[in-house]
């Protein structure tokens, strides 16, 4: 079943209750599925939360992931996206001694900006598709980033 591993985004609407996140992550680890990233936050004015899971696997594995998620009692809905808007955020810390105008220009190209300037460091934020965030992180490598924090993807079906 290790044929053509495809990257997939799965969103899961779950009842917002104790240990629901462990149920989901246990399912992935117990059945040997990958989690590339996972984000979770409550859906306003409801008793539900939305999880966005980036995973990979063959068509059959992805189908099993969807079905097994659905089997969990607190899961309301599972969307295995084909057509979606997907965004991810990355915060990056640079030494203040780097070329700030270059960094700023690159950020701009990826829908980002400088969000904090401190004594020794600046922090940038970009929000874009995960692939583009990858490219951004590649592009800023030569400016000696000190720390990087990625959010994991969030997504909505169109």
């Amino acid at each position, binding site marked *: 079943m290790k044929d053509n591993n495809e990257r997939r985004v799965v969103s899961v609407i779950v009842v917002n209750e*104790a*240990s629901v996140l*462990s149920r989901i992550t*246990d399912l992935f680890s*117990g059945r040997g599925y990958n989690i590339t990233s996972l984000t979770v936050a409550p859906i306003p004015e409801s008793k539900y939360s939305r999880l966005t899971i980036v995973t990979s696997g063959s068509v059959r594995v992805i189908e*099993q992931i969807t*079905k097994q998620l659905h*089997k969990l*009692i607190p*899961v309301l809905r599972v969307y295995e996206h084909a057509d979606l808007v997907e965004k991810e955020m990355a915060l990056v810390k640079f030494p203040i001694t780097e070329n700030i105008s270059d960094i700023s220009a690159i950020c701009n190209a990826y829908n980002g900006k400088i969000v904090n300037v401190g004594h020794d460091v600046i922090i940038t934020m970009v929000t874009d598709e995960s692939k583009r965030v990858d490219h951004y992180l590649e592009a800023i490598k030569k400016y000696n980033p000190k720390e990087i924090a990625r959010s994991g993807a969030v997504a909505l079906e169109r």
Partner: protein
Amino acid sequence: MQISGAQMVIESLIAEGVETVFGYPGGAIMNVYDEIYKQDKFQHILTRHEQAAVHAAEGYSKVSGKVGVSMITSGPGFTNAVTGLADAYMDSIPLVVISGQVPMSLIGTDAFQEIDAVGISRSCTKHNYLVTDAKDLPRILKEAFYIARTGRPGPVHVDIPKDVTAQIAEFNYDIELNLETYKPHVKGNPRQIKKAMEAIANAKRPLFYLGGGIINANAAYEVRDLVHTTGIPAVETFMARGTLSCDDKLLVGMLGMHGSYAANMAMSETDLVIALGARFDDRVTGKLSEFAKNAGVIHVDIDPASISKLVNANYPIVGDIKNVVTEMLKLVSMVESENYEPWRETIENFAELHPLTFHEDTPNIKPQWVIKRVGELLGDNANISTDVGQHQMWTAQFYPFTRPRQFISSGGLGTMGFGFPAAMGVKAAVPEKISVNFTGDGSILMNCQELMTAVEKKLPVINIILNNNFLGMVRQWQTLFYNKRHSETDLSVQPDFVKLAEAFGGIGYRVTTKKEFDAALKDAIEKNIVAFIEVKVERFENVMPMVPSGGSLFNMMLLEKKESE
């Protein structure tokens, strides 16, 4: 009504119609046991180990179709019960298992007998709960029973901290459950059902592949109708034994690793697999890429995740088997039974070529003979449990099952130590039938302490120990695949099984001849107390036929033919 959490547990069990609870007390669950003491609506059976309490509840549930209930304390009480939960999960047995937990104020402090019980049971239950407020208890227990018995059944674990069982709150069990996120499919899609029936009508060599889901769904008699009206041959999985009666002409036999030649060949030659409540387990399919290679697949199952998990289904039907089969029966006039006559003849030839049998060619009793003999003597009159090993496979092969829920065995997890406590649960549920447990000299020592429970509660289970002085099934693999290096499987050093039974107040027999066996069985039934009948059997007998692990179903190791044949 304002009552304590502990009283709520009792009231809920009564409201669910629970008649028997299997359990073992301890600190964290004592408030509930105090209320058990004060009531007389259900009986509590004190097993002598928590694992046995859960297996007994499984046996009770499997034979009766009701939800089995078991109660245990926190920490080691709970961890002892985990094997039972896992066993019930693998075999889709509806249970509600209630455990005590340390008080809420101590959770997370490594308190005495604290363990993260819901963390442990999460991966081996259908669902679980940690109750944090007594006011939630009636809803949670009602949900637990509902979730356990509906959809694909399974065990539900409810962990209750000690202070919650002491807390007073409002109790009302007469509530509507509102489980927005849990709505099992019951009705199959009518268009899919019609397409499936068309596929059956067009097939030349269709084959029913009957699984344990049929028994869980109480659909065996509808399935019998469907098999008979279509005239399509059927193979059963280990878990489905008893769906068709052993004398049914259309029953080809059990398939899989120790299935019959005819059943495995039929599966290899069919052009349309009609899977009902079966899950294409690796012990059934052998090498997947060669399994029913040229066949289309109709797959009916209550669990969507079972469909196309391992084998792609051309006609997936999600629904309750009873419901779907009833709908299929309405369309049965589409199918011409005569069309399958050549196929039925092909299968008959397979069966004649290599019938399921054994040779009585040694002075020692053959284990298979014992099982056949019990079948001749008790037949339909007995419910049959087993432990795990060679004796289990021989029971599935040679006992003449005639009805669903007659055969109780640990299929998915393969738990040694399951048989005896399960047989007690069976006896507690159906006292009018004889409860027989076929076991091995290895397995019986895992949970032999249950002799005490069986004596105390008058549960006269007849344990037939097929003693080969080996962990026989492992020994068989060592003989066949490890060049006879019998590593740590020789059980030459053994207890005196007769004295062991007697030490607890049961009765023991040691038999070496067929005549002695008949006499012992008769005597045990008459004495009506828990019995060990130790039968000295041929040590090196192998379970045949056999599909080596990972091999193709049509590549079986077969019983060697005798010269005279």
